[in-house]
């Protein structure tokens, strides 16, 4: 063992000859005072810093849901072509908060997923699954085409070319019995087998390990 420069002191303040020491006392009053002042300072700093941090990251944990939005009467949507409709995805900011949705009637020859009350109409999001540019439906080619990086999707919204890692997102649809209008609800993501997942952001694959590498977020959940 290396020789210490100073002789080791007793841990008891009484043995160190500190005036007014109590028996069995190990913390000097100076040390206690310093510790208290530092601790109080740390508490006050945390009292300001933590709420500010939580304020900034709060939206990550806040669930945002949109109401069902009417898009038109049931008979205007054909089975083999898409009709565009405008919905609001971010209320309160006018045009910047709107988005286009392409809607067609469910076609049993194409749509092989089991039918239920929420997929009687197929509503495809125009948000490209690559990086979020707006795709457009080209009826002559029967393809969705993205202007930014060349993503191409077929009638089902499945990727047939370009960089997108998964098919186009979809929306739940339903028929409102009171108004008689088709309504569009929440968005959901699908993988290449059209399995339903909570809505993901573009650029996040959902096949294989992708569904674990890009988990569902608390801010958006599927129905």
């Amino acid at each position, binding site marked *: 063992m290396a020789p210490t420069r100073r002789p080791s002191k007793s841990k008891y303040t009484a043995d160190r000859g500190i005036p007014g020491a109590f028996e069995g006392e190990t913390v000097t009053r100076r040390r206690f005072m310093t510790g208290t002042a530092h601790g109080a300072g740390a508490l006050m700093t945390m009292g300001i810093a933590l709420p500010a941090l939580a304020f900034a990251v709060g939206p990550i944990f806040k669930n945002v849901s949109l109401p069902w939005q009417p898009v038109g009467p049931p008979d205007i949507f054909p089975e083999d072509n898409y009709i565009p409709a405008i919905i609001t995805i971010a209320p309160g900011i006018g045009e910047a908060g709107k988005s286009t949705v392409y809607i067609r009637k469910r076609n049993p020859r194409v749509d092989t997923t089991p039918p239920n009350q929420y997929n009687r109409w197929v509503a495809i999001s125009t948000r490209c699954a690559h990086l979020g540019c707006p795709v457009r439906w080209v009826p002559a080619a029967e393809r969705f085409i993205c202007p930014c990086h060349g993503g191409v999707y077929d009638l089902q919204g499945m990727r047939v070319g370009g960089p997108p890692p998964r098919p186009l997102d979809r929306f739940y649809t339903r028929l409102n019995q009171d108004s008689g209008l088709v309504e569009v609800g929440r968005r959901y993501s699908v993988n290449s087998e059209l399995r339903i997942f909570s809505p993901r952001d*573009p650029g996040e694959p959902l096949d294989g390990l992708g569904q674990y590498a890009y988990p569902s977020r608390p801010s958006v959940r599927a129905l």
Partner: protein
Amino acid sequence: MPKLPTPPIPPRFLPAPPRPGTQRGRPRTPVEKGLEAGKTVVDWVDERTSLSGAVRWTMFRKVPKGTNWFYTLGSATMFAFLNQAITGVFLAMYYRPDAAGGAYESVRHITNDVFLGQFVRGMHKWGSSVMVILVFLHMGRTFFFGAYKYPRELNWVIGVVLLILTMLMSFTGYLLPFDQRSYWATIVGVNINGTGPLVGPYLSDFLRGGPEFTATTLSRFYAIHMLLVPGLIIAMIGAHLYLVAKLGTSAPPWMRPKPEPELTEEAL
């Protein structure tokens, strides 16, 4: 710890010898007294702050032989940043971070209506590109001259942090005009951030302030662009410059040390 020698004062800053027939340090005519006023003020401040030592330490440094124009790229970058800071402060006097159309309208107002608005906005817009280019040129100079080596590694690290902060400024500033290009570029940029595994989706939510692009996104980007990152950049530039003054600049790689003749191996 050994005391470092006081940096020399260049001759031109030394007090001139008194003219014949005048008494040193005693201004007599009002003109002479007036000329002394500046000196008096500086002395008054220096006596209370000792700033002259710091100024001499920063400004009157020895630079190695071979220092050339490439060594000005760092200062050029800093002046590009100062240009961004000054024009940015004045743009903020007219800009409104309102996603419902007010942001675009205020930028249109700056460009078309405000006196010299197009000029100030142009300085900010083109200056940002100039700054990014200069940052990379400065980085290239440091790399190819080997100026990142011991003992300047920490300054390289700070420089990389400054590069990242500069890119963050470019990213957040691009959204602010709030035209189609800004909007879609930000959508794509945020989604690129989101492709990071595990943390990416949460990072996207943090940047947007929620799952979709909303009014919060614009004000968030504005706060990051004009308050958060500039503060960090100023602090980092301060640390960067302190280390430059402390460590000195390196000689270009083609300069070889020339030892004193009496210290060579043969002479010894």
